[in-house]
């Protein structure tokens, strides 16, 4: 049985938890009202004063916060403290338009580290572990959050960062890595490359993986566990409300939510109405302890279910289903968020290319594969083969610079991409067919 990081909280009664949540909700609403002008305006419009929040049900009177609210406030419009008080800033990629900026003061950073330590403990990470962090650092929250959280547990951190697979495999063998932090796709990729090099992963001390950045499907989990000889665990978070640390999978496969720090709701994505516990809907999160950037009722666009169960691990915190689908058209390809509109911007701003494109996502050799099909009409078509190939290359380069991924660009005949009456279907996601 894995040690529980904070047993007092993580095994508390539901009554005590709700008491704590209400107390923290009231102070968060008060903080947002007093210190964040856009929130005060919105709460005033909705007729919600901090004092009027008397029970957890009152949360439904508070208006939602959506992604564009954070974008519109770029860079520091939603912060409740002066920027000088921040000790860390992170941002999302924001390849089209402004990125989303988040910030942490010292107290927030301490909470974040605690939550990531909880995630580590959920996965069974202990001080004697050697953790190889094959996750992107830079402006994203993922690598940093897990780094400090697992370091707090006392594990030996190997901040390998993303890429450089040969070096990763060398360190894994030479440093005696016992825990891997990465996207599940990358874990599989490491397995493939390692196998081709003749590495016997089962002979290595590698025993657990903490995967994030994209959903770990059931079949991915199985394959990773078989090939690397480890326990594969999932964890969930989003930078808008913190980063990693919102929930993490215990050894029994249940994702426990840090509900003392995040008040969760599950709503009907169409109507915004709250759904009863256990029904699938859109996850909405309210921060309960963040002071630099309090966030009220953030619509995550992730579809899931949250419920209280009797988990054999002993934790009483609510458990959420792994997120498989989104309410909007965002795709997650190799751990990168991709909006079809970004791909459209990338290719269709090149002279002559019309808006008839199809993004085809599939899984090939354990990795997400991205193909973009473009129709070749009279404007695009050139008699010169080298011109056509140069065009293809230009489109691929443009897609890479906007989205950050390598796409295979395939030229197809006009009319071969299906036209629809209503909203154009720009995405063919063949990964769904496994029904996971």
């Amino acid at each position, binding site marked *: 049985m894995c040690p529980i990081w904070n047993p007092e909280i993580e095994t508390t009664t539901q009554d005590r938890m709700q008491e704590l949540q209400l107390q923290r909700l009231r102070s968060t609403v008060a903080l947002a009202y007093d210190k964040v002008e856009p929130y005060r305006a919105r709460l005033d419009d909705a007729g919600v004063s901090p004092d009027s929040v008397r029970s957890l049900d009152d949360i439904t009177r508070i208006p939602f916060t959506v992604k564009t609210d954070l974008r519109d406030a770029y860079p520091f419009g939603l912060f409740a403290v002066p920027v000088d008080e921040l000790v860390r800033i992170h941002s999302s990629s924001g390849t089209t338009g402004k990125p989303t900026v988040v910030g942490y003061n010292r107290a927030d950073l301490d909470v974040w580290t605690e939550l990531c330590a909880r995630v580590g403990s959920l996965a069974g990470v202990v001080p004697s572990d050697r953790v190889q962090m094959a996750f992107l650092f830079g402006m994203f929250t993922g690598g940093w959050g897990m780094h400090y959280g697992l370091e707090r547990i006392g594990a030996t951190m190997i901040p390998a960062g993303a890429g450089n697979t040969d070096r990763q495999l060398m360190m894994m063998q030479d440093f005696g890595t016992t825990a891997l932090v990465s996207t599940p796709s990358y874990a599989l990729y490491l397995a493939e490359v390692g196998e081709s090099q003749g590495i016997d992963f089962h002979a290595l001390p590698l025993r657990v993986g903490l995967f994030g950045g994209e959903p770990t499907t059931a079949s991915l989990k199985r394959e990773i566990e078989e090939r690397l000889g480890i326990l594969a665990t999932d964890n969930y978070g989003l930078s808008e409300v913190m980063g990693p640390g919102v929930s993490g999978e215990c050894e029994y496969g249940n994702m426990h939510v840090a509900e003392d720090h995040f008040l969760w709701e599950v709503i009907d994505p169409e109507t915004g109405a709250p759904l009863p516990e256990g029904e699938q809907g859109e996850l909405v999160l309210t921060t309960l302890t963040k002071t630099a950037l309090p966030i009220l009722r953030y619509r995550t666009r992730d579809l899931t279910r949250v419920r209280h169960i009797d988990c054999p691990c002993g934790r009483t915190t609510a458990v959420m289903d792994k997120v498989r689908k989104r309410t909007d058209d965002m795709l997650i390809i190799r751990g990168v968020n991709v909006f079809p509109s970004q791909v459209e911007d990338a290719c269709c701003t090149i002279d002559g290319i019309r808006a008839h494109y199809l993004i085809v996502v599939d899984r090939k050799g354990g990795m997400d594969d991205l193909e973009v099909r473009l129709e070749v009409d009279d404007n695009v*078509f050139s*008699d010169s*083969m080298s011109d056509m190939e140069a065009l293809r290359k230009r489109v691929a380069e443009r897609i890479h610079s906007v989205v950050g991924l390598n796409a295979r660009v*395939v030229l197809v*005949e006009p009319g071969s991409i299906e036209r629809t009456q209503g909203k154009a279907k720009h995405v063919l996601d063949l990964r769904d067919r496994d029904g996971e």
Partner: protein
Amino acid sequence: MDVQQLSVFIENKAGRISEMTDVLGQAGIQIRGFSVSDTTDYGIVRLILDRPEDAAELLSDAGFTVKVTPVIALDLPDIPGGLASVLGVVSGAGVNIEYVYSLIGTYVVINVHDIDRAKSLLEGKPVRIVSQEELSTLEPLHSHHGLGS
């Protein structure tokens, strides 16, 4: 008039080239020569025809992506070294050839960047430049297998 070459974009799908040649055949259009350039996903088929404008319209209507490019057609002497001598003249005149392919009989087609410049460079040289009209009005040849006419 300059020889008008049709380039057709063909996706690498079975039957696509024959669909195209069907359209031409049904309209009674004669192919004087062709060349195929291909990658794994698609190919460019270049055609010299007796009625290039009609063909362009028909293929377009049938959903093909078509481009018309002026090219230079030359008549070769049918002797060993014939092609070499012609190409020698062309490149000797400083003309860079994008691609070459042969047509029926003794004709070849070359594509160059600057047609007018190329033609003026070739003036007075021992090569015969051929017009679209000549290719349009050629008598049909008899093929060797004797399968009807």
